[in-house]
């Protein structure tokens, strides 16, 4: 593999180093922000509203200056470069299509200001429209297009001048669910076709999981975890991530003892064994997270180290699985998902059953902010 011989840093396209940003000189909108984006990667910034995603994108695009730290694109600091010289394609949340220009003129704009010839421009515009499957819409005004079509035009315009880095700020936020899923697929297809680096901002965890090579989870201006979607789901390292990504049962407790990477944690009256993820000491407050699908209901006795009594509160039929809410380990909303197979042990609301899980499916994380909740 020739790639392996290349110097590792050659593959880093964008680098945030110790970035901090404050708009008012007091509150930090972004801080201690370190992130490397590989060339050709699809990286999502995922976080709730106000977590600093747009701020990061604006600093990368050059519309905001970092208060501390440095941003490098292709190894060079872009501190002194104005937005127009960064050569970054950008898709805005409101699309920012120019309403007084036709679709073709919108796409030609970045080429015109670069002084490109008419023929060259026409060729590139046609190619970009074909890429987003909007041939034949050249003469329309943005106001005559549907939301999804406007979205495609915005993407085509961000790509038409062939930037190798494209930023998208919640580009699908204004679309309905069906269109959103279609556009997710389209954007991924375009990403694969062109091989550009995409930094994508969203607050929709499912969207981030579906689209990205890696996801950076943000919270209050800090990165909680950067990882590929699968590991974010399977191996959350922070209780915030465990809560934000997918569904997790979270148990609050105190560390009793640590043996190698297995922890004994007191949760209410019970003692749970779990795998150590975040560094901690005996006596520390902690959050345990367990995926509902990893919980067995009425298992063969003795199969699991963690086994507890649980009273079934309700059972919901969700197509291919049953979703069972139980009272267990001091919580009333403990959720288990079990496959909906014919002949599966009949459980009824109000029954008391045994539930169990292995220590490796149960992760010891930081206490999290809602520890006492």
């Amino acid at each position: 593999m020739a790639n392996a011989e290349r110097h590792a840093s050659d593959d880093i396209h964008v680098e945030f180093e110790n970035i901090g940003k404050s708009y008012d000189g007091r509150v930090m909108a972004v801080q201690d922000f370190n992130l490397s984006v590989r060339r050709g990667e699809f990286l999502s910034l995922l976080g709730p509203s106000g977590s600093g995603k747009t701020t990061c994108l604006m600093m990368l695009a050059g519309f905001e200056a970092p208060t501390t730290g440095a941003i490098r694109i292709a190894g060079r600091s872009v501190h002194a470069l104005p937005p127009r010289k960064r050569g970054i394609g950008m898709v805005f949340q409101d699309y920012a299509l120019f309403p007084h220009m036709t679709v073709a003129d919108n796409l030609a704009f970045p080429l015109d200001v670069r002084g490109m010839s008419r023929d060259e421009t026409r060729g590139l515009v046609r190619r970009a429209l074909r890429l987003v499957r909007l041939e034949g819409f050249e003469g329309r005004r943005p106001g005559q297009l549907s939301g999804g079509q406007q979205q495609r035009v915005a993407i085509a315009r961000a790509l038409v001048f062939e930037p190798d880095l494209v930023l998208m700020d919640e580009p699908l936020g204004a679309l309905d669910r069906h269109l959103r899923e279609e556009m997710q697929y389209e954007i991924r297809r375009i990403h694969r076709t062109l091989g550009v680096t995409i930094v994508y901002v969203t607050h929709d965890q499912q969207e981030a999981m579906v689209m990205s090579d890696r996801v950076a989870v943000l919270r209050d201006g800090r990165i909680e975890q950067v990882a590929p979607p699968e590991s974010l789901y399977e191996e959350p390292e922070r209780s915030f991530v465990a809560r934000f990504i997918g569904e997790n049962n979270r148990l609050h407790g105190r560390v009793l003892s640590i043996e190698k990477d297995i922890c004994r944690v007191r949760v209410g009256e019970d003692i749970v064994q779990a795998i150590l993820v975040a560094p901690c000491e005996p006596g520390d407050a902690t959050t345990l997270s367990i995926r509902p699908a990893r919980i067995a209901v009425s298992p063969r006795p003795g199969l699991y180290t963690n086994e507890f009594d649980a009273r079934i509160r309700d059972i919901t039929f969700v197509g291919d699985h049953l979703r069972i809410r139980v009272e267990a380990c001091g919580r009333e909303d403990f959720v288990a998902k079990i496959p909906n197979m014919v002949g599966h042990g009949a459980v009824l609301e109000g029954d008391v059953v045994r539930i169990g899980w292995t220590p490796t499916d149960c992760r010891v994380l930081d206490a999290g902010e809602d520890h006492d909740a």
Partner: protein
Amino acid sequence: MPAKITMRSAAENRARLRAAGLALPLVAFVGVTFVAPLVSMLVRSVYDPVVADALPETIALLDDWDGMNVPEEAVFEAAARELLVAQEERTIGQIAGRVNRVQGGLRSVLVVSARRLRDASGSVGRDSMVDINPAWEEVETWHALRTAGERYTTRHYLAAVDLTRLPDGSVVRQAPDRRIYVPLFVRTLMVSLGVTLLCLILGYPLAHLIAHSPPRRGGLLLALVLVPFWTSLLVRTTSWIVLLQNQGVVNDLLVAAGFVADDARLALIYNMTGTFVAMTHVLLPFMVLPLYSVMHTIPRSHMSAAASLGARPGQAFWRVYWPQSLPGVGAGSLLVFILAIGYYITPALVGGSTGQLISNMVAYHMQTSLNWGLASALGGIILVCVSILYILYDRVTGGGRLGVT
């Protein structure tokens, strides 16, 4: 279900009727305060029955007159009879005034003749009238009488554009020293254009600043723009007198700074400069408000998008921002221009003799010379100019945006 549909449409009709009813006071108000005066003004500019009603027989006879030689005896007799009646009914003054407007100097001819005719006895004809005043022997006098007797007339409009009709019916320009209105129209258009341009140059950056400021600061700035509306127009205009007069603040400062010698103070008011400055000030909000209302709908992201696409600030402005602000530029300019064309108080107060505009002339004819026909014709011309501009603007900005075409 047809029954249901009928019911609903009946309900709809009732709702529509009620809506129309609510608009009725407004329609009445517009009708009484706007449409009626406008129509009566336009009528007055082409319709003047005073002379025709007072001297019906004379005017009828003059219609058949060849216009080359002094009219026949019958015309003199009719004129004498009818002037006498007018004298008794005390309408002679009105008649004389109107004839005098057609040809200067005839007022006294008519008034005096009428009075003397009363004293004369027996048959009155050509000889006795020429006796009273030799002007009756001149063809021009009879032409003036015939012109003033036109019930429906274009003479006010001709006068308003410095034209006059010769006795042979041909239309020619007034003598150079009597051409007043066309130069005044040109001056008014020029001043209006200049004021509009100045308002645009001053108002555009201001509106931009307000539209793209954070909401609180924007609101404050907008309030500052609106403050002049809470001040009387007279106060605003007269404060310019304080500032600009010979011993005013501006001149004092210039003298103190040594830019101007004390005995060579600038004439900044009671001339065109004063009109220009004060009108720009008074009309500026009418430029800023439409500009603002368009600009604050232009998303900030458009300029960011242009920059990220590689445009320099200038390119981004001219190709992305300016075209989107054009409806505001059009609306603001049109508003200022229309207001400027008809502007009256400010030029009257600070314009001196060289800073007067066409509406000051309209006011003069309304209030002083009492030539309402001419005043109406001048007003009609202004109205037509403005309407043309309005339609032009509507076409240019894509039609129907202002609800007209």
